[in-house]
């Protein structure tokens, strides 16, 4: 089982992909997952994160099977 990672909107376009998958044991927090997948690219200011579709923080713990998402401030409505 791995961790599924999603990117949305401007962040998805900047990275050039909408999804990643990470083997679970390699990361423990949202920030560590970003570091692992971004090849040294800093997380843009104001980026929001979610774990299993709930807003979370960069230091929130991630577990096997979780879905983690990174996205810019929301602009619906």
């Amino acid at each position, binding site marked *: 089982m791995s961790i599924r990672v*999603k990117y*949305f*909107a*401007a962040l998805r376009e900047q990275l050039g992909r909408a999804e990643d998958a990470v083997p679970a044991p390699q990361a423990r927090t949202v920030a560590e997952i970003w570091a692992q997948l971004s090849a040294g690219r800093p997380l843009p200011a104001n980026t929001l994160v979610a774990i299993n579709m709930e807003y979370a923080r960069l230091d929130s713990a991630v577990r096997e099977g979780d879905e983690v*998402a990174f*996205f*810019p401030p*929301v602009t*619906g*409505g």
Partner: protein
Amino acid sequence: MIEIRESVLNPFEELQRFQRQLETKGKYGANVSFVGTVRDFNDGKPVETMTLEHYVGMTENHLERIVAEARKRWDLIDVLIIHRIGTLKPNDDIVLTAVWAAHRAEAFEACRYLIEELKNRAPFWKKEQGVGATHWVERNN
């Protein structure tokens, strides 16, 4: 009822259809509705088309939660939210939030709450295409 859709939104036809099937006739004394529409100019830039992206699943969860919070906070009879995704043009309607209640104070307050919370928390993102220029809207105002 909460709906996210790609097809055209005619808010007043939706309101009429939704209200006709309400089984609470005679109970509500107030309906307040908000409709958000694409403008042809935003942040000083002309807009030719707008594309709306969302996070499937998280959006629905958060809209349901926002409605549940409004129902807990005010005595509401019914609630309707419809939000478009995909490509829209100026004058197309993006979003409808509507509340039926016994009295107008709760209908106004709850309708405003729904749209403010939707804008703050529901994971939608707008991209605007102008004359030769495209940009993601950076924040809601």
